């Protein structure tokens, strides 16, 4: 258990520290693209993805940093991409919303809400037709369940019994709009059961629960070649898009914000470790090592060169 906890904490802390460093340095004006930070939602990514194999495939949306990092995506390439530099994971054409790293199965991030849903379902179809021992995970937000393409894909995945997990991070909001104004309630079981897809709701801020529950689910999906719907309730700390807080806009209830901050996934994981006799000193050591590594990658990205504009007209066709 202890080793697992440490592994999970490393992934959580890496994500948190990367995102906070982006947030801190954004105003310097060198990261010149929109950023949708994952701060507060790290455990949804870490807890599930730690159970995946490298060959399993992941798809994501505009808020893709945590997913990319948890899947083992190259940090330097992610940062270089956000800095618009030539070492970026897609050479600077995409920016922060299009992260991918084929070497670890992070297939694609698409910033149009729910747009990656079809591609992910197609990926699962491929895995099934070719008898691969892989599965597909599509990370999506609560709002993505409002697009028609979700229903089309859920129906198809169930009908054809495809090895795909719909991993939905419910942070209660689409930009500034509460889910209450957009859906009849926030229990997504109704969507899954409409297509006879098994469903589980998990506390997305408790990394141990996400980890344990999804381990079983992933085994099942891999063995039975069937879809599964996972709802992870969580909360985003920062503004929808950008490096800052936006609580002064008062679109979220301040008690709600406090409640979720008291459920902070990093603090929670820290407490877990202490309960399991991993002491403060050891934790600090882990954190310090990560911080040194991350700071170094930021330095690299800052000094990477801008890509040559001639690259922009390549790869339109294969």
């Amino acid at each position, binding site marked *: 258990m202890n080793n697992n906890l440490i592994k999970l904490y490393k992934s959580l802390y890496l994500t948190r520290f990367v995102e906070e460093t982006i947030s801190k340095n954004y105003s310097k*004006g060198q990261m010149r693209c*929109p950023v949708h930070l994952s701060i507060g939602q790290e455990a949804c990514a870490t807890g599930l993805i730690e159970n995946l194999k490298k060959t399993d495939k992941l798809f994501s949306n505009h808020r893709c940093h945590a997913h990319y990092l948890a899947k083992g995506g190259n940090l330097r390439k992610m940062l270089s991409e956000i800095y*618009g*530099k030539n070492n970026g994971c897609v050479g600077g*054409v995409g920016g922060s919303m*299009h992260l991918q790293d084929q070497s670890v199965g992070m297939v694609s991030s698409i*910033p149009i809400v729910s747009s990656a849903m079809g591609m992910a379902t197609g990926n699962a179809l491929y895995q099934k037709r070719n008898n691969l021992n892989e599965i597909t995970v599509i990370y999506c937000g609560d709002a993505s369940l409002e697009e028609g393409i979700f229903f089309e894909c859920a129906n198809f995945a169930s009908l054809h019994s495809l090895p795909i997990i719909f991993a939905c991070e419910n942070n209660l909001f689409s930009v*500034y709009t509460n889910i209450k104004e957009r859906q009849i309630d926030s229990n997504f079981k109704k969507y899954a059961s409409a297509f006879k897809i098994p469903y589980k709701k998990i506390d997305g801020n408790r990394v141990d629960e996400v980890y344990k529950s999804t381990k079983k689910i992933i085994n099942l999906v891999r063995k039975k070649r069937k879809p599964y719907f996972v709802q992870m309730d969580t909360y985003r700390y920062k503004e929808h898009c950008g490096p800052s807080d936006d609580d002064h806009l008062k*679109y979220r209830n301040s008690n709600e914000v406090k409640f979720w901050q008291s459920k902070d996934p990093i603090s929670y994981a820290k407490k877990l470790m202490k309960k399991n006799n991993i002491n403060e000193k050891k934790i600090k050591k882990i954190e310090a090592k990560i911080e040194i590594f991350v700071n170094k990658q930021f330095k690299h990205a800052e000094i990477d060169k*801008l890509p040559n504009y001639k690259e922009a007209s390549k790869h339109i066709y294969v």
Partner: protein
Amino acid sequence: MFKRNISFTEAIREAVFQSIKKDKKLFLMGEGVDDPSSMWGTIKGVKKKFGKSKTIEMPVSENGMIGVAIGSAINGSKVLVNLQRVEFALYAFEQIINNAAKTSYISRGKHSVPIVIRMVIGRGWGQGPEHGQSLENIFSAIPGLKVVIPAFPEEAKSMLIASIFDPNPVIFLEHRWSHFTRGKVDKKFKIKKLKSFNKITSGSKLTLIANSVNVLECLRVSKLLKKYNIDIDLFNLCMPNPLDLTEIIRSVKKTKHVITIDLSHIRLGMGSEIISTILENRINLKSPPIRLGLPFHPVPSSRGLVKNFYPTGQDILYSIQKSLKIPKVKFSQILKEYNLKSEKLPIDVPDPYFKGPF
């Protein structure tokens, strides 16, 4: 006429407020229609002023939303749909092209679809391939749609009012950078006729056609050239669909030189359509027509990659020189003056105050 200096954003808002007052049948739909941003302030306070019934907050369901707007409109509602980016409407292409554009046709005029779909066009700050397209040429290829792109605050107000009170579906494209422009705008509510072109400067030497933010750059160039006795007939293509080229034909007959600038890709852009029609009219041009616009590849995110992507004031000047064969000495003087006056700003921001997107 009482005109004040207001921003494009305020002009849009004024058009919306005055239109709601004029017509009880009008209401707004959108994602975040009354949120703290309210489409970057352009519809801020509608709910507070006119009540809940005038704003419908929408799930993130663009295809359904536009279908619902159409269905409501054929019964006589007027609907103003608000989308933060043109790309989000792509989920609703079926509704827009099959239903909005064809409802009048297949009902033999019995149904009309008085909806306006406001969509913002992005550029800069690394928006990238799926948040930086404009697609006006795609919408303009569809009969039954009207496509409107204002460049100045005055146009924003008068053309939005005209679009709202037009019985046809209107695609209303606003460049995000246009929102920051300021200008004199009439306070009164007036329903004017929608026109394909607005003439911005008059001249006899060359016909220059552009729209949206490109018009602003053209205006700067035209003003500069006037000092050197090169007067430009500059047109803002503010409604590319339906396209009435009468004024352009008249202008080119006079100038015999023409340059077009597309907001989107040059390939199959508005410039291609305009120049084909000029040639069909047997106008003997004194130099080959020139098309500017975007090269035929997606919009990259990095500021390094958008170098040479968007047409600049210099590109326009060089094209004019090529067309008019301005003597070298004179041209280098012009170029020098242009470079002196235009600030050296980063390629991906409209002005120094712009810090990050929404």
